[in-house]
């Protein structure tokens, strides 16, 4: 998108660089909270379908645990692949 813009950033004074770093921290926090919300929604949707009781039964709980763990592993693997592509293996395959 903008190598140029990233060039500009290097020339920023110290305080702005700190602001940038803080911004990145902040985005990561927001991002992990969102990821957490999406994970809960997905595993709930996939695993819980009966509403005859107000507590999770054993089977639902197991399903949620597996779903969440699987999603986290999935997410880490995607992260690795994504980083590789971002670092520039030429796009066309």
């Amino acid at each position, binding site marked *: 998108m903008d190598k140029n813009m990233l060039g500009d950033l290097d020339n920023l004074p110290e305080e702005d660089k*700190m602001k940038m*770093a803080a911004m990145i921290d902040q985005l990561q926090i927001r991002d992990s909270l969102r990821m957490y919300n999406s994970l809960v929604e997905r595993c709930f949707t996939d695993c819980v379908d009966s509403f005859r009781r107000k507590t999770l039964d054993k089977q639902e709980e197991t399903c949620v*645990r597996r779903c969440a763990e699987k999603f986290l592993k999935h997410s880490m693997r995607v992260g690795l692949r994504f980083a590789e592509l971002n670092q520039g293996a030429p796009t066309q395959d």
Partner: protein
Amino acid sequence: MANNSLPPHLAKEQIMFMAEKEMEYRVELFNKLTQTCFRKCTEKSYKESELNMAENSCIDRCVSKYWQVTNLVGQLLGTNQPPM
């Protein structure tokens, strides 16, 4: 979160920011819960605008189970503080 390395006025911004994110998180949780339980508990035919008894008790249980899933996932993520 190198909070303590920031000049004071930025550190204060960080606190405000965290409070804002915390609230956003709760709002988003509430919205997702509301949408998900609406999908799970309501018939799409919309034959009436009232919630009937079956829907009401489905909602209560759905909220309760969603809450449990939130806590369960929170534990798995290894946050030492529970997410709510």
